[in-house]
């Protein structure tokens, strides 16, 4: 293929594709475009709506940044991340919700009544502990098989949420999850919650940035490029992979805790396998091995859903599906023309 393109002069299409692949201009355009749409959107819809949107964005951004640590920096294509998100959300729901209102006592679950800021570290820890066990088993798998077993983790987690009724109330879901409060000051307003989410997002991004720019991150990249070489140089790659997996899962648990508190209602349908696949596509869309890219991808994802509401011929109930179609087509196109994603540093 290369020889034929070397002998004949490149066509317009080929030159265009070359520019697209080699230069970083696309990244800049995408940044400007997506953020521009976000600004226009805010101006148009008013602040109340924008606050909700921004909170959703923060939660998805924490998730996608954390997944990028595993997929982009370490090269383990995990499709099971939504399981940790779900553990966080359910942890928050079970620990803080007040279930005394339940009429159907048979479906009542144990009550803890913890405050938000005590429950959040518990969620993070729970996700971390589960990740430690799961990661110890998953560490030996690679490539395709890793994808398959991570699918398995997502499905097992979903089934546990759905079927362990004594703890999760199954398909009924858990209502009245608490909003945070500091001392006597209740953070019930949306704007306060948004500030909290932004703070946590900054913390997550900071930790990720610190990790990937330290020597620890360089070892991760070495594992991604060639695990055996990293082993030859004396690094215990198993521990590195386990460590980043647990850290990433803990961030997902944090996002889950925020999500549970934000929606005030948790049920298994938020943690289906499909959501996990969408999450992976956000990370790949935004860019592998790039924290900025993950933020961009999450922003594009959130805006895509809301932007679809303005399509005149699309009924409201199909917005989620239409977004899924767009993401699927984008994935195919990206894999064809730009396998590192919009702002990525690593080609899959």
């Amino acid at each position, binding site marked *: *293929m290369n020889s034929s393109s070397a002998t004949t002069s490149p066509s317009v299409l080929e030159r265009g594709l070359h520019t697209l692949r080699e230069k970083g201009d696309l990244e800049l355009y995408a940044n400007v475009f997506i953020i521009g749409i976000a600004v226009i959107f805010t101006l148009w819809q008013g602040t109340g709506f924008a606050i909700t949107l921004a909170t959703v964005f923060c939660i998805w951004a924490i998730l996608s940044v954390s997944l990028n640590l595993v997929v982009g920096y370490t090269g383990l*294509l995990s499709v099971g991340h939504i399981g940790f998100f779900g553990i966080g959300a359910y942890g928050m729901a079970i620990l803080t919700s007040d279930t005394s209102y339940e009429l159907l006592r048979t479906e009542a679950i144990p009550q803890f009544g913890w405050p938000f800021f005590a429950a959040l570290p518990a969620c993070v820890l729970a996700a971390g502990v589960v990740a430690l066990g799961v990661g110890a*088993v998953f560490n*030996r*798998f690679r*490539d*395709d*098989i890793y*994808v*398959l*077993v991570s*699918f*398995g*983790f997502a*499905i*097992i987690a979903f*089934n*546990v949420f*759905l*079927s362990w009724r004594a703890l999760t109330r199954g398909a009924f879901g858990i209502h009245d999850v608490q909003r945070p409060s500091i001392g006597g000051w209740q953070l019930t307003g949306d704007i306060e919650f948004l500030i909290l989410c932004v703070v946590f997002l900054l913390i997550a991004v900071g930790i990720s940035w610190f990790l990937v720019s330290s020597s620890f991150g360089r070892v991760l990249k070495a594992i991604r490029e060639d695990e055996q070489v990293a082993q030859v140089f004396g690094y215990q790659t198993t521990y590195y992979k386990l460590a980043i997996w647990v850290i990433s899962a803990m961030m997902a648990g944090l996002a889950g805790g925020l999500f549970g508190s934000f929606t005030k209602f948790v049920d298994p349908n938020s943690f*289906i*396998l*499909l959501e996990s*696949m*969408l999450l*992976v*596509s956000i990370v*790949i869309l935004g860019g592998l091995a790039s924290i900025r890219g993950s933020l961009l991808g999450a922003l594009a994802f959130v805006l895509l859903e809301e932007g679809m509401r303005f399509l005149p011929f699309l009924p409201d109930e*199909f917005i*989620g*599906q*239409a977004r*899924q*179609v767009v*993401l*699927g*087509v*984008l*994935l*195919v196109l990206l*894999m*064809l023309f730009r*396998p590192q994603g919009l702002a990525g540093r690593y*080609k*899959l």
Partner: protein
Amino acid sequence: MTDVRSYFSSRSNLLAVVMTALVVAYIGWKITESPDQALQFAFNGMSVGAVYALVAMGFTIVYSTVWFFDMYYGAAAALGAYGVFYLRSSETLGGLYEINNPIVNGIFALVVAGVVAWALHTAFYYRLRSRFSDRTLRITGSVVAAIAGLYAGIVLTYPKELHITLSPVVAALVATGVVLICRTAYIRIAGSDGLKVPTLAALVVGIGLGLFLAVWIADSPGSKLYLSWGVSCFLAGVVSLALYRGLYVYMRERARSPLVMLVATLGILLAFSALIVIVFEPTPRPLPEPFGNETMNILGAAIKGFNIFTIAIAVIGFLGLTWLLKMTTFGRTVRAIGDDEEVAKVVGINTTVIVAIVFFIGAVFAALGGLLSGHDTAIQPRMGLLLLLKGWIASVVGGIGNLQGAIVGGFILGMLEQFGIWDLAGEWRDVVSFLVLILFLSFWPTGILPRK
């Protein structure tokens, strides 16, 4: 003896043996506890396992040829099931969810036209180029493809008259089949095809049989359900072929690793499953009963006739695929491509065509599995992904890339699932199968029948 000792000296082998012994002991204990129920569970496991085996076989033949995971398989399984629902929606629940969308029909007609154009081009263009002008060939090909697309559109637009619209196709297929079989048998027996008389006789018999069948099918509306199976399997296969030829060929040239293909096909699966939800609603739907609802009693266990039919289809599919891969020239080329695609190209195999046909066959198997499981339970948009994963697990359990392994793995996975949920509730079925997967991968990564 030393072999045995060295086998057991490996810790993971020892663990594998211990786990297998534990599972066998558990199942044995359950069987002694209540043999009747165990037999019932075994039958259920067989009928579920037959579906997994079908999906796994389609999956294996593709995977062992191109060596990447094609996630479109899930969509193919869902397309197979939803195709039957689409064509038979006027009969299901008294036409409550009747659906016939001109856009969908148009898209499938276009896909069929494109694939027919490609097939004509690959089959005839280079042979006839010396005899006819380029323009004649192109125009003829386009016209034939357009007619084929139009025909597909008509078939999809009038699903109530399926038995009439499809009777010419059945006639043509039967006639071609009879002629080909007679010719092969004649060449095998007589050693040459010099004589004209037997060929003519086969032609007459074939056309006669085809016409008779066409008239008979056009006269029997009860055959519509079975014809719709054929149509939906064909459509799933055609979409797979079109995806391979139109997309995967270019993507494989660029792809750095199999993961790229996996992610791209994941995108295709996402798009397809969303489109299925848009066209049909997300709620589960039933399919019409194929053979009535009565159950048979075999040794005290109740089993539906349809489940036996499913198992039979899986076995027939396995035998057919084995024959195709081991006995025919096509099978030899497929295995050659699986061994080394570059070398296969060098020795003059048109790999694009062969792999495209493999994709067609694989998707037909997936669609068959999807529609059989849809008849058994109900159809829902996410069934495709679950069936794909189950087929994937079955092929890992049986030994990845091995056809015998696929069918054995499918049946074993079905059995293990059924016996696993004996003491739990039925909703833990998926958990059981993924635990089986993780155990197998940890302790027995080659599977039961490893590929040589």
